[in-house]
């Protein structure tokens, strides 16, 4: 810095020093002449403190109306029914307000034993109820536990409102553990896979943040949101800042619809096609979406491939088709596809091409591709859930379900060729009948094998529940898609899709959350529960028993992380090495055996009715009958079934 020669500035600084000294101690040489006062007097220490310091009003965090009570008032305006969470001191104030001031209703606190379980429960609940839940967690260690569940929700386009406690005031927060559990910006951990986040610094700010978070999360494309909640803000009483605290009114945002010109062009292509095929992944957000898709498919007599992100299309409909149906298409309409590239291309992990595998094309040259996907409106950079890039001919950044009415109208207006409609209908009926026959023949193979075949597992389960209003709340661990192939899935709640991000550990908590929603609707919940998935956080079994959530969990216990069994075997073969199994069945590190986990005892210890291990397929049907009765009486039940690998 250059030497300051400005005499005025020197005089000003001298004045500051003099004034400051005068305010602090008595003048040392009062008899000497006083320096001339500057034209603008600097602030005294008292004035500076009043303007920049902590207000002198009461600073006690105890007493008055707790700020967290107001937060509960905000939350209650949104009709959030449950709050699954693992308790944590960083949100103790709002915890206390929720259960005492709020009466533990709307939301009701559900005791969870892992933050990932809490998020998974909210994930599964939404897919039945269509309403989001919120969860609370430590903003640091708790959120670290929750992250995989949040990522699954992000990939699966499911809204979850995550609130993390965090004590931001480094000067006043307790030392030790609470400080280990504090961070400058807890939201940074999940910012790459949440739609929005905020850190409110006042109660008025919290009201806006929470309502905004809810609104953003529930606007398609849905997704999780994150709020950092300061411990001090929770604990401090409501203060009078001269403006009454207000809670913004929530008004749902209408989902984005496709551009009218693009809709017309899509309809023109589809109506003029010789063999249009529809592919749906997360198209049907609601039961209405299923009806709309049936209407569009029938208007075109187009076969529909349901990729199963949601229940989009009745499996019993003659236009329901397998993934291979894309091969004969001349126009393909993709509705909320998570991976358009893999829909029309193939990848084989065969070690060729320098080890990177082989890419192939599943469709005819010149096939026109149309995409309607709301996810295009909300793509982030870091995590690669957007998959490989696929060029298409018409692309709409819009919600598919909301766009279907306009598309159906335009297709009908375009008037598909009548002879073509009849030809396609006849071909589809024939193809479906043949496909079902092949599926049944395949299911019969190994029918009496021990361990139980996955086809037998699924069909025995279906036989036990078919007379009920059932909902398959999760099917984890890969049972060769038997439910999708053979169960007459027709209703939106009968199939809820999968985890989204393929983070293992989703099945158990999501099925409990979905079963909670089904309980309130009077439905019967059943899950195909895999072994590896359950062991990430089995404490959710206790949560189900604690809160009387009826659920039939039929285990697909193949005693391995079977996907990894095959991956390590593959690499061993590529390298001409015998896979080292270490005395287990699968390669070292992939088996869950020696000792075998007694899941039925694990479940029993946490308040479930349970039975197992069932190895003989003849024992499965009778055990299922017992278990169904238990679940109908309101208790969760688990059957530990030893199964074939896939």
């Amino acid at each position, binding site marked *: 810095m250059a030497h300051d020669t400005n005499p005025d500035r020197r005089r000003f600084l001298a004045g500051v020093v003099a004034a400051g000294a005068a305010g602090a101690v008595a003048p040392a040489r009062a008899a000497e002449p006083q320096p001339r006062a500057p034209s603008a007097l600097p602030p005294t220490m008292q004035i500076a403190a009043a303007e920049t310091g902590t207000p002198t009003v009461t600073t006690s965090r105890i007493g008055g109306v707790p700020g967290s009570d107001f937060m509960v008032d905000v939350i209650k305006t949104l009709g959030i029914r449950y709050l699954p969470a693992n308790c944590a001191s960083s949100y103790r104030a709002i915890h206390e307000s929720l259960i005492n001031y709020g009466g533990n209703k709307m939301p009701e606190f559900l005791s969870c034993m892992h933050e990932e379980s809490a998020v998974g429960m909210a994930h599964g609940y939404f897919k039945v109820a269509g309403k989001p839940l919120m969860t609370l967690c430590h903003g640091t260690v708790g959120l670290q536990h929750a992250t995989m569940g949040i990522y699954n929700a992000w990939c699966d386009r499911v809204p979850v409102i995550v609130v993390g406690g965090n004590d931001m005031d480094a000067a006043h927060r307790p030392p030790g553990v609470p400080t280990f559990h504090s961070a400058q910006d807890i939201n940074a951990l999940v910012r790459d896979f949440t739609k929005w986040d905020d850190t409110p610094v006042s109660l008025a700010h919290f009201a806006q943040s929470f309502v905004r978070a809810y609104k953003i999360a529930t606007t398609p494309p849905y997704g999780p949101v994150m709020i950092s909640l300061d411990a001090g803000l929770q604990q401090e009483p409501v203060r009078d800042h001269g403006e009454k605290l207000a809670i913004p009114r929530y008004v749902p945002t209408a989902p984005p619809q496709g551009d009218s010109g693009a809709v017309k062009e899509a309809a023109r292509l589809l109506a003029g096609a010789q063999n249009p095929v529809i592919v749906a992944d997360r198209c049907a957000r609601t039961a209405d979406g299923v009806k709309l898709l049936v209407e569009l498919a029938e208007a075109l007599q187009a076969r529909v491939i349901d990729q199963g992100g949601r229940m989009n299309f009745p499996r019993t409909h003659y236009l329901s088709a397998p993934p291979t149906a894309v091969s004969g298409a001349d126009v393909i309409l993709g509705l909320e596809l998570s991976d358009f590239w893999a829909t029309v291309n193939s990848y*084989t992990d065969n070690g060729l091409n320098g080890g990177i595998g082989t890419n192939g094309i599943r469709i005819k040259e010149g096939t026109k591709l149309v995409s309607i996907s709301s996810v295009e409106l909300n793509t982030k950079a870091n995590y690669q859930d957007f998959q490989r890039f696929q060029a298409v001919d018409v692309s709409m950044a819009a919600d598919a379900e909301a766009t279907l009415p306009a598309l159906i109208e335009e297709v009908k207006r375009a008037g598909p060729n009548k002879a073509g409609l009849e030809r396609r209908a006849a071909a589809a009926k024939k193809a479906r009948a043949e496909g079902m026959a092949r599926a049944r023949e395949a299911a019969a193979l190994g029918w009496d094998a021990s361990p139980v075949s996955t086809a037998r597992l699924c069909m025995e389960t279906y036989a036990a529940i078919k007379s009920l209003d059932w909902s398959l709340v999760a099917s984890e661990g890969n049972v060769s898609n038997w439910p999708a192939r053979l169960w007459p899935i027709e209703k939106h709640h009968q199939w809820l899709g999968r985890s989204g991000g393929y983070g293992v550990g989703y099945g158990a908590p999501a099925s409990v959350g979905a079963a909670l929603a089904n309980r309130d609707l009077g439905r019967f919940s059943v899950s195909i529960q895999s072994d590896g998935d359950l062991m990430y956080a089995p404490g959710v079994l206790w949560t189900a028993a604690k809160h009387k959530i009826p659920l039939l969990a039929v285990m697909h216990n193949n005693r391995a992380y079977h996907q990894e069994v095959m991956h390590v075997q593959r690499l061993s073969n590529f390298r001409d090495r015998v896979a080292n199994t270490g005395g287990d069945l699968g390669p070292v590190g992939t088996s869950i055996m020696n000792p075998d986990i007694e899941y039925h005892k694990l479940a029993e210890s946490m308040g479930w009715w349970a039975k197992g291990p069932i190895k003989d397929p003849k024992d499965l049907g009778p055990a299922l009958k017992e278990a169904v009765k238990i679940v109908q009486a309101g208790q969760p039940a688990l059957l530990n079934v030893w199964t074939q690998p896939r």
Partner: protein
Amino acid sequence: MNSIVIPSVARNLVLAVGMLIAPAAFAAGSAEKGKAAFVQHGCWQCHGYVGQGGITGPKLAPNPMPLEAMSAFVRNTRGAMPPYQKAILSDADLADIHAYLSSLPKGSDAKSIPLLNP
């Protein structure tokens, strides 16, 4: 889903080529040894313990393809199934596995299983 499937066209091509180049004869295998080898070499992983197949691999039994064709495929596959060279799966073990698959009885017909015909 990270499914592993074998494209049928590629599989058939390998089989056809394999039939032409495969050795004329294999020693007769042992079904008992083959059952153990089927597990030891990981065949069960994609095809199931009784070769029933599933989403990750086609059915192998009952009525497996001829041993020569199976050998040609196993040694030369460029599909989703990783190849098994002689260094990790001997001809003798392969013949035993084939004998095991050949010994498996035909199960119930799908039409006779009530649960598959609701």
